[in-house]
């Protein structure tokens, strides 16, 4: 067969194959277009995992008729003009490939109206061939409706995965975009059912908490800069980790979600020795560099980038993250006055691990699968993470000096007081390896010996810490109750409650007198599980309670559920991490039996 030039439609289909690999690729391109169009609300509707339909509706600036026609031409874009503009791309898209590519492999309809126009325009394209252009009544913004993706490429369609898999990829794509843009409303529906909802959030933290599940409660803001590099984001302590990088590590470069290996390795390096082997820390990072210092024109999907000076950037990232996680504290936003030192004490954990004697390390490894909790979460927290792309240490690893107090393998207090047998654990609780639960009353951990954390006391300390944090921020917010709790008080009790009203209000308890009956209408917002009846009983029993200092322990004790709720390893880690972070009272909730004491006891037996 002689060589010949391919027909344009075939060229388009080949090119489309690079940009549109699966429904999620179409979702990504269309959502990015909506973001570039300054949308404040983006709605994605999917049918059959996106295979039958992907519809993206935005309220952005929209397009006039001519622009709408032009945007379906290959390499037609409003985002760059000249070759040198490629060096300073500040929009998500710029190649002018997405819409024609999608239109080439689907039954495609674009409906758009610019804010200046009275009417919109609807353009229908099938398999890359223009079918119809007509005026349309629509709100300002753009709606792209993609039906029967790959209907004209049966080979590609055959390679699409199951409905649930494609749906997952589509939703995950929107989630990544939503995490990076808290100011935009995102909704995803699948076959009519809402599967993701991200209402406009005040900041990235709120957005992450809405999208990433209960573990996101442990996320904390972080911000640092090194030269022209600026990094903002959210980091979780090393105790919070997930099994796949895709669901844990969300990285953005100049607002664009990327899968860049260089940045990933910097993150893993910063968490080295803190996150268990084979697990991934929960983290959201937005890295801002000069547009000229990064090339986003590496691949049509634009999830890969190239940095002009990769190694200095990597070192700066590792250093900044390590500092934020456990270093000098120069990084990150202002913290609560109750929190001293590192954000999570991860540096302490790293130090504790690296300072532990070899015998302890080997015993940890041996005990890795023998805990009371089943599954891979039993991994010790030490050791380098075994990520596929973690081939070895970075060229110039940043060392973290060990605080002198943590350098000793055996706590001096134990050595000086052998008769005490049991002492309060004094290593950070997060650095302990969880072993299991004993009758749901005690959390058993491996530290420098056996550490036993009292479940109930830990919950009480957690509640107290939350109340104190609220008080330090100007007062604890009150959560209105659906069912106010009424209580009958004696005249003396009524007087005492009235005297304590100011303190009760400061701590978030809304209590009012209805004559002889008092009614609790609101409870402290940070303690959502607080049973108002239990609170009422505790308050009455504790009277007189005139000061906030008197109230905190009473309310915290009342907030401890009875019976104690079952605790899974994730909850246990989050509980210990929260206590560490608060820097409050953990020594009163745990006991430590040193290894020497255990060995002595066993020898005596």
């Amino acid at each position, binding site marked *: 067969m002689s060589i010949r030039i391919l027909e344009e439609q075939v060229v388009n289909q080949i090119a489309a194959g690079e940009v549109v690999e699966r429904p999620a690729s179409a979702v990504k391109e269309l959502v990015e277009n909506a973001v570039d169009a300054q949308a404040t609300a983006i709605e994605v509707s999917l049918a059959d995992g996106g295979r039958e339909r992907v519809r993206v509706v935005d309220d952005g600036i929209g397009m006039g008729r001519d622009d709408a026609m032009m945007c379906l031409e290959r390499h037609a874009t409003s985002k760059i003009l000249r070759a040198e503009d490629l060096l300073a791309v500040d929009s998500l898209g710029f190649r002018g490939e997405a819409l024609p590519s999608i239109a080439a492999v689907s039954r495609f309809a674009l409906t758009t109206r610019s804010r200046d126009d009275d009417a919109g325009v609807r353009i229908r394209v099938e398999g890359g061939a223009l079918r119809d252009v007509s005026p349309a009544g629509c709100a300002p913004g753009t709606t792209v409706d993609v039906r029967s993706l790959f209907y004209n490429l049966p080979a590609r369609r055959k390679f699409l995965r199951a409905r649930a898999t494609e749906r997952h990829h589509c939703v995950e794509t929107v989630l990544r975009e939503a995490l990076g843009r808290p100011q935009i409303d995102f909704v995803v529906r699948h076959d009519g059912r809402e599967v993701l909802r991200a209402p406009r959030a005040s900041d990235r933290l709120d957005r992450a908490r809405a999208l990433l599940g209960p573990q996101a409660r442990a996320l904390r803001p972080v911000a640092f800069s090194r030269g022209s590099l600026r990094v903002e984001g959210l980091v979780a302590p090393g105790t919070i980790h997930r099994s796949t990088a895709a669901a844990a590590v969300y990285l953005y470069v100049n607002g664009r979600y990327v899968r860049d290996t260089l940045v990933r390795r910097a993150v893993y390096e910063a968490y080295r020795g803190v996150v268990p082997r084979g697990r991934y820390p929960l983290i959201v990072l937005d890295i801002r560099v000069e547009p000229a210092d990064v090339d986003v024109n590496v691949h049509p999907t634009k999830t890969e980038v190239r940095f002009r000076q990769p190694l200095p950037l990597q070192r700066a990232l590792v250093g900044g993250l390590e500092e934020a996680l456990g270093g000098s504290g120069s990084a990150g936003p202002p913290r609560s006055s109750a929190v001293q030192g590192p954000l999570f004490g991860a540096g302490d954990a790293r130090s504790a691990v690296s300072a532990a004697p070899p015998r302890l390390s080997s015993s940890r490894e041996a005990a890795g699968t023998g805990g009371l909790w089943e599954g891979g979460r039993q991994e010790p927290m030490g050791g380098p993470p075994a990520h596929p792309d973690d081939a070895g240490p970075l060229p110039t690893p940043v060392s973290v000096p060990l605080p002198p107090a943590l350098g000793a393998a055996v706590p001096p207090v134990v050595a000086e007081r052998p008769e005490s047998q049991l002492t309060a654990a004094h290593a950070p609780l997060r650095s302990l390896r969880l072993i299991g639960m004993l009758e749901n009353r005690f959390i058993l951990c491996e530290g420098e010996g056996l550490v036993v954390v009292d479940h109930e006391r830990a919950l009480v300390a957690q509640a107290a810490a939350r109340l104190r944090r609220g008080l330090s921020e100007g007062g604890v917010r009150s959560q209105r109750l659906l*069912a106010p709790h009424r209580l009958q008080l004696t005249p003396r009790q009524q007087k005492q409650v009235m005297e304590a009203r100011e303190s009760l209000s400061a701590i978030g308890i809304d209590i009012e007198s209805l004559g002889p009956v008092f009614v609790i209408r609101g409870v402290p917002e940070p303690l959502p599980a607080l049973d108002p009846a239990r609170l009422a009983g505790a308050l009455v029993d504790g009277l007189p309670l005139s000061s906030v200092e008197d109230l905190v322990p009473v309310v915290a004790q009342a907030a401890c559920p009875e019976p104690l709720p079952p605790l899974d390893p994730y909850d246990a880690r989050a509980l210990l991490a929260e206590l560490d972070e608060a820097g409050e009272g953990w020594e009163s909730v745990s006991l430590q039996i040193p290894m020497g004491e255990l060995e002595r006891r066993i020898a005596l037996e």
Partner: protein
Amino acid sequence: MGARCARYGAQARSRQPPGGSIWEPPPEPPPDEATLQQRADALAGWTLGEIGARFGWRAPPDLRRHKGWIGNLVELALGATAGSRALPDFPELGIELKTIPVDARGVPRQSTFVCTAPLGDLGDDWSTSWVRKKLARVLWLPILGDGPPGERMVGGAVMWSPDAEEESRLREDWHHLVELVVRGELDQVTGHRGEVLQLRPKGQSAADTSWVLDSEGEWVRAQDRAFYLRPSFTAALLRRALRL
């Protein structure tokens, strides 16, 4: 308030309460939303009997023949003025008051009436529809308990406007239901239609009918309907607002 409630409403204030105490005069309409919220908050924890006693209203033994008693009492206590007129309960504030009977977990016991829907005049567009106007700003007042009305308690009030997602779901249902009526497919308009919004006969207006075109294009008389919110919709908004 209808005449059937006379014994249990304002007309029942023929005698001074025992002990010679003075009934409270109903408050003036609230000047702003914050005042209304404060008043609603102040009712939380009171039983309806206690609230009624403040204004000289006796509680009926049950609601079978006094359906509007709870709503009327709460409107009085909060200073509402619109009564049964086709206006929001607080017309100056554009706020609608909705009492909503719930169980102890905050699950509504029934669907929530929004507005009547004369089939001949359902409106042309969602943006100008009565449903949208009525639901633009709502003060939800949960009512707890299912015993005698006087023993039921007012719960924590929630001031609400539909967010973009809620409005979109309401809009979709409204268009769907109105379209069925306009196409004359009245037999399709049942309580099963609508994800969050229903269009179904209203209990007290069974005699109200309108002329409408059926699917064959023939004029027929059909019973008027009313829009109701499904309990799942109201449960979700209460759950979110009160973190249930």
